[in-house]
């Protein structure tokens, strides 16, 4: 136990104060995100992630949102196990035909009002896989999509920005 405490103390708080990734720093994006989530979702935005056919690269970056650098939960955003608990679906991949029905069912199981974000080049436009006998291509070809986050895969900061933008769009509606 002592060693755990010592290690924790020595590493210190690495959760990012201010990296300069692109124009907007994590802390700023996070603060805005937290404010929006506070206003619109009572302080808690529940996301259900759905891999509808991705190469798994996008999942790695979505995972990274929970690592101690990004720690997205501190902004009130958390990932839930069931679509029934979700405010938002984060959908990756070109939608494989074999996942088409499962994605539709997940969409239907998510209570209204809901937001759907298509993640990655694949989710946005089919990416390297496009439309084929095995792939429906973009997520929007299968369920209604409110926003896309481009990138192959999008970085964690881009993901946070994309989520922020999507809920901002909703606010304006």
């Amino acid at each position, binding site marked *: 136990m002592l060693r*755990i405490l010592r290690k924790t103390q020595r590493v210190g708080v690495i959760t990012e104060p201010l990296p300069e990734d692109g124009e907007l720093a994590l802390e700023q994006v996070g603060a805005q995100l937290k404010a929006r989530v506070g206003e619109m979702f009572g302080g808690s935005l529940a996301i259900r992630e759905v891999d509808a*056919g991705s190469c*798994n690269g996008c*999942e790695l970056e979505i*995972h990274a949102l929970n690592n101690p650098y990004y720690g997205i939960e501190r902004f009130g955003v958390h990932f839930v196990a069931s679509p029934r608990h979700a405010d938002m679906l984060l959908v990756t991949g070109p939608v494989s*035909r*074999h996942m088409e029905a499962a994605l539709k069912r997940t969409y239907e199981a998510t209570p209204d009002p809901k937001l759907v974000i298509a993640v990655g080049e694949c989710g946005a436009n089919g990416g390297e896989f496009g439309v084929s*006998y095995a792939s429906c291509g973009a997520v929007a070809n299968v369920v209604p999509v409110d926003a896309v986050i481009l990138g192959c895969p999008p970085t964690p900061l881009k993901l946070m920005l994309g989520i922020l933008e999507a809920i901002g769009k909703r606010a304006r509606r």
Partner: protein
Amino acid sequence: MTQEQRNSWINTFVDSLTLRGAEFTMPRSTSLAPAALIGVRAEDWDRVGQEAKASDCRWVAAWGEDCGQQFTINVCLYKPSDYLVVRTTVERATPVLASHTPYFPAADRPERHIQDMFGVAFMDHPDTRRWTRHQAWSDKEFPLRKEFPAAGGIAGSTPPDDQYRFLSAQGAGVYEIPVGPVHAGIIEPGHFRFQAVGELVLNLEEHLGYVHKGIEKIAEGRDAAGLARLAGRVSGDSTVAHTWAACMAMERAAGVTPPERALYLRALMCERERVVNHLGDIGAVLNDVAFAFGFYQFGRLREDWTRLSGQAFGHRFMMDRIVPGGVTTNIEQSAIDAMRQQARALPEELTKLMAIVDDNASIEDRLETTGVLSLELAKALGCVGYVGRASGQPFDVRRDVSYAPYDRLTVKVPLYRYGDVAARVKVRAEECLASCELIAQLLDTLPSGALKATWSAPSSTVEGVGMIDGWRGEIISYVRFAADGRIARFFPRDPSWTTWPALEKLVRDNIVPDFPVCNKSVNGSYSGHDL
């Protein structure tokens, strides 16, 4: 014949096949070097399976190809220290072949994949259910036949696949737990069907194929650069290793040799990919046994490494940095220094963290003797990578069928025999240490010079095979060019083909709540398997 050919097990194998009455349809060829290539008649296919079993080979992979009037079927075998590809043809009108599954359980799903994609029937296969095909095409259509259009024939939406015939179990107190395809976490889709009594798992059956994206089909007609991009998306977590394997196959086919510096940079990226994935997974295993400290510490290290890869190579996962003929990206001196520093610092951090983990009796209790894969099963299923190495299978392409630049380096391969979750975690931690040593060696001896050789597409129907040891283990990549220099056939064999069946077996007799930790310790790729 070279000295090496004279000493190889392949000579004895060929002699025994001849004694069993097999006839060869082509002279032994080097067109798939370093693998040897022989051809046999279709009626000799069962003899090949028998003899491979008798010779104690590892059954590595199988793939087909539509060659007009005939389908070519290939099987790749391995025995220290040579690969052998045996090829046969079946008539399009009567596509029937003996199954190797009675000899090698490892052949089970690969043969069913060929059955679904080409319509070749494997006689005496113990399980003729479809595997890769769900409901996106009919049982009369075969996507990898040339006449099947890549766009497919079905308009409208694809129905769910709820008619798959799962095994069932009966008896007092036996119940089923269906899980997926959409899982609870941020993870790829697949279906697991458990039969359990109380907390005990009696049986697990996997139903995969949900993320089948038609990779083999949409590879056809691409140029070399396009294939490299696609290969980098067979399994995103192994993007470096898969791209390298595909480029190696294309380069061997086209007779292009990448410059030394490019080879070193490829290995550097590949070792970084290994470290990052192992770190992330060790953290995830610890998370599954509720040791949050471990999850965050390993998550921190993983992110540190990912970030430096992004700074050094311009992409956090180093996607699309390997191209036919070489690499796209040079690295700055500052990045070299930072990577050297990182490889120097990690072993100490890791050793300390692993000591904390070892000290925790409750973690030990959850990881030791959990999810045991016996040596016999690991061997029968042809397990490679850390799953194999935790169960006494020492194979590592980097060391055993070495390729540049590893042929100049010392590759240390950890080996355990307990086959439990704890052993897989240990192998992965030790592989990180070994990779740090390799990274230091690569950086110390990094040659100067060009990043890329001129790529010229071949003008005949040449073929090549690439073998790369990625973080999950051996990747096999087969490529054939058409005469116009475009891709006629691409088959990537991710090591997950060998570990998914292993997961089914190793979770038996464990309690249901230990499934996540068993699964994470194996961490098969769905995308890499479903193609």
